[in-house]
Structures are given as C-alpha cells and as structure tokens.
C-alpha cells in the first residue's frame, strides 16, 4: 500500500487545496515533511480559511488570547488559544502544550501569521487589543504590538478587513497596525485608548483613514481638523474645542453628501459661539435648561427633498442626523440647501 507521505507533490497540492483549512493545519503537524511542504506552498494554493473575525488581545496575568471564528450558522466555528507567559504554554479547550524555552509572544505572532496565510475572503473584523499597563515592566507581552508590526511587514500584503478595532494604552502603537490594513477593504475604524488624549495627526494622513466610511474614537483627538472627518458617513469623535466656522464647514459637507448617516462631534471645552451660529444659520429652536441649552437647526439636503439634516448644538457636543422631512417639528424652519 502507498502511504500519504509518498504521494507526488502535485497530488499533495491537490489534497491540500481541496481540504478545509483546519485539516491543513493538522496535516502540518503530522510530520516535518508535510510541515515544510505546506509552509513552502504559495498562499494561492492553500484553501480559504473562511474566517470572519480574528481577535488578539492581552488578557489576564501575562496572557495573550488569540481567537478566530465564523459565526455563520452553516460554517460555525470558533477557536481560542491562550498563550501564558508565566506557564510558557499554549492552551486550547482540549489541551495545553508546554513550550519550554520558546518566547511565547513569538509563538502567538507566528500562529496568527499562519492563520493569515489562509485568509482569502475579507475579514468582517480584526480586533487587536493591547492593554499592557498592568503588566510587569519586563514582561515580554509589551513587545506584542511591535512583533505584530514586524510580522505584518514580512507578510508583503495588506490585511483585508472591513472593520478594524484597536484598543491601546499607548498612542504610538496605533500606527504600528493601521498602515498594514487594506485601505480599499476597510470601512470601519474603531480606536480606543485608556490614554485620554491621543495625537492623531499621523493617523488622519493614512489612506486607511481617508478611505474609510465610519470612524469612532474613544479619546480626545489632538491635532484633528474638521477636514479630516467630513468624508465619513458616520463619525464619533471628540476634539478639544470647536468653532462656529468649523461647524458650518461640516454643515456644508454633510448637506451636499449623499451617504451621510449620523455623527457626533464632542468638544472638551464649552462651546461658546452660539451667537455666531445664529448669525450664520438664523434663530435656533432652543430647548433644555439655561445651564445646558440645546439648540437645533434643520437644513435641506442637496440630493433629496425628503431628507433633512438635523443639527443639534450643545455645550460639549454637536450631533448631526439625517431625518425625514415629515419628522421635522411643526413650526421649525428648514433652511434651504445652500452650498455657501
């Protein structure tokens, strides 16, 4: 009888191409010949992993957690790996492998690299979370973001994901990841940081930021201009202060946009240019109390007679929402579309 290991290369290639990706990962572990053969194969000859979401995060006491999954009921799978620095081990639900003297961060990054080799369709979401502030200073987990960046560089191709979520405790780490995401695929950027203020002047210059459709930042964005956000159909972002002139710039951009949905622009310092807004847009409908007034204006849209921009200005935030003309309160004036 012939053994699987004696199959000609073309046959093995065919078997691998027609296997599911978990089987190929298993075949890699069968023997060194298979491992070398599979690792030397061009990525195009590997089956699609059909993974929808990958997340890697620092978790608990010096742990790294890597999860990949597809929640489609027909394909459903979810695999979780815990890499423990203290135990120097990799665990799944079923077993724990002790990795002796191997650097555990390298193992986690290599595993992710291997999984990415099989990614052919777009990911729905890539979530990277590096909260390392509680770790000992000398913990190897601190190097995770830099090692991921090095691995992405080596990949020689961008990662195709629709949503990118990054949670960091150090603002400099965002730029270790963002440039390696495919800007044509990326739709949605979600950035979180436990650092209150993040300088985003380099982030807003990336193709990824410029081509994305939605953005959410859970921190005060330093060095951000309204020109950096007006192209989004949805944004949630907070800056330090906002002027009437900047709000008018956004009003113009949004009323001439055809795909704007809704947004929120926060400001740390109290907004005190309400008079200037009334000079520009006419009287507002004022509600709320005098301590926290809410001023609302309505604007006609360039491309739709049925839709209206509702713009609410409060002390610490401005909200922009597209509503139906019929939902405008009685008596409220809808300012006609005006591009100036």
């Amino acid at each position, binding site marked *: 009888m*012939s053994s*699987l290991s004696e199959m000609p290369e073309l*046959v093995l290639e065919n*078997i691998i191409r027609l296997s599911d990706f*978990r*089987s190929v990962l298993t075949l890699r572990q*069968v*023997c060194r010949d298979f491992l070398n053969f599979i690792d030397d194969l061009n990525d195009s000859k590997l089956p699609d992993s059909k993974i929808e979401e990958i997340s890697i995060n620092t978790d608990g006491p010096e742990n790294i957690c890597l999860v990949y999954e597809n929640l489609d009921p027909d394909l459903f799978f979810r695999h979780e790996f815990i890499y423990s620095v203290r135990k120097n081990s990799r665990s799944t639900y079923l077993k724990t492998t002790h990795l002796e003297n191997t650097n555990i961060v390298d193992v986690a990054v290599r595993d992710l690299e291997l999984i990415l080799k099989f990614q052919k369709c777009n990911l729905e979401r890539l979530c990277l979370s590096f909260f390392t502030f509680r770790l000992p200073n000398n913990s190897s987990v601190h190097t995770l973001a830099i090692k991921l960046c090095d691995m992405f560089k080596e990949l020689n191709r961008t990662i195709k994901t629709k949503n990118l979520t990054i949670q960091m405790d150090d603002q400099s780490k965002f730029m270790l990841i963002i440039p390696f995401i495919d800007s044509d695929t990326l739709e949605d950027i979600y950035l979180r940081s436990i650092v209150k203020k993040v300088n985003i002047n380099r982030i807003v210059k990336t193709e990824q930021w410029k081509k994305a459709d939605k953005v959410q930042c859970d921190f005060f964005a330093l060095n951000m201009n309204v020109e950096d956000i007006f192209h989004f159909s949805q944004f949630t972002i907070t800056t330090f202060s906002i002027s009437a002139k900047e709000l008018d710039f956004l009003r113009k951009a949004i009323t001439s946009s055809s795909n704007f949905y809704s947004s929120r622009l926060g400001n740390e310092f109290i907004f005190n240019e309400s008079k200037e807004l009334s000079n520009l847009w006419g009287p507002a409908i004022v509600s709320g109390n005098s301590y926290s007034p809410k001023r609302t204006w309505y604007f006609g849209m360039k491309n739709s007679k049925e839709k209206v921009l509702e713009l609410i200005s409060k002390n610490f935030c401005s909200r922009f929402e597209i509503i139906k003309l019929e939902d405008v309160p009685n008596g409220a004036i809808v300012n006609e579309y005006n591009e100036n």
Partner: protein
Amino acid sequence: MSSTEQGTSSAAPAEPTTAPESAAAPEVPESFYYVHGKDKVVHKVSAGALQHSALIHGMISNLGYTEEQAKANPFPFENIDGDILQMVVDWCNQHKGKPTPPEDTNLPKQKEKLFDLVLAVNYLEIKELLTYCCKQVAMMVKGKSPEEIREIWMIPTDAEDEAAEKEAKKRAGKEAAGETAAAAGDAK
C-alpha cells in the same frame, strides 16, 4: 460524438438486419486502443474514453494505428495493478464525452485502493478523476488528529523517520566499508 459503443463488455450486440438510419449516422468509425496493467489483462478502450487521460491521449494522437496494429500493441502500464486499471477504464468509459459531475461518489472507500488509484490517475494524467480522488482523501483527513492521520495513513513520525534514515546510512556505510574492504582485498 456518438456513444453507441460502451467500451469492452457492455457494447450492445448490433443487429445485422436492415440498417436503421442511426447506424449509418457515425461518419467516422470510433477507434479503439488496448491497455494492460501489471496483471497483463488487456482492456479495449475507445479513443473517446481515453481522451480523459492526457498521457494516453498524447501517446495515441499521432499514432494513426489500424485496429490490428492497436490490438497487437497494447499500452503496457506495468506500474498499475490490474484491478486499479480496471477502475480507471470503467470511469473513463462511464464519463466518455460527458461533462463530469461536481461530485463522484463511486470511488473506493478503502484507503489502500484509493491511494493506488490516486497514483495511477496522477500518472495517467486524468485531471477530473484526480480531483475527485484528492477530494475523497481530503474528506478522510477531515476531523482527524495528527496521531490518527499518522496511524491511518502509515506515516512514520519524525523520530521514526530519523531512526530509519540513520539505519539506512549505517547500512550504506557498512556496505561501502564492505566494498572498500573487498576492493582492498582485490588489490591484495
């Protein structure tokens, strides 16, 4: 192409009565070739069925054999077991001139036969059948652990492999030493 011929055994006996129109229809009579495997049992296969095999198709396309010449010169495939060649011939006959379906469920389920079939099909370059066979192997690997795969498919572990290699080297070394000793003996 007319498919009145169904290969060797299942060809319907032709009635030599008044020639019906359909019998007159094939303008070019189908040519046949002969193949045999390790067991020397000769199979008569139509050129149409053999088209599936890129290897045989390449061999026969410029031969221009007459029926007698073809019969006298069967293609020998000494590296293919008789029963495996029979399977290949049956498959080619069944799929003669037909588009191949996306799945083929008639492949052998025993891994020994399947592996020999894969090797034969790869050698004969029958692309579609190779895809079916590889799909079948992929199905058999699915859900198994590395240990199970090693056991079922008779793959030595790296340690066993290394031991075997060492043993082979040792043997080769001994033989070489024997040879040099013999050579030295000759020289004396």
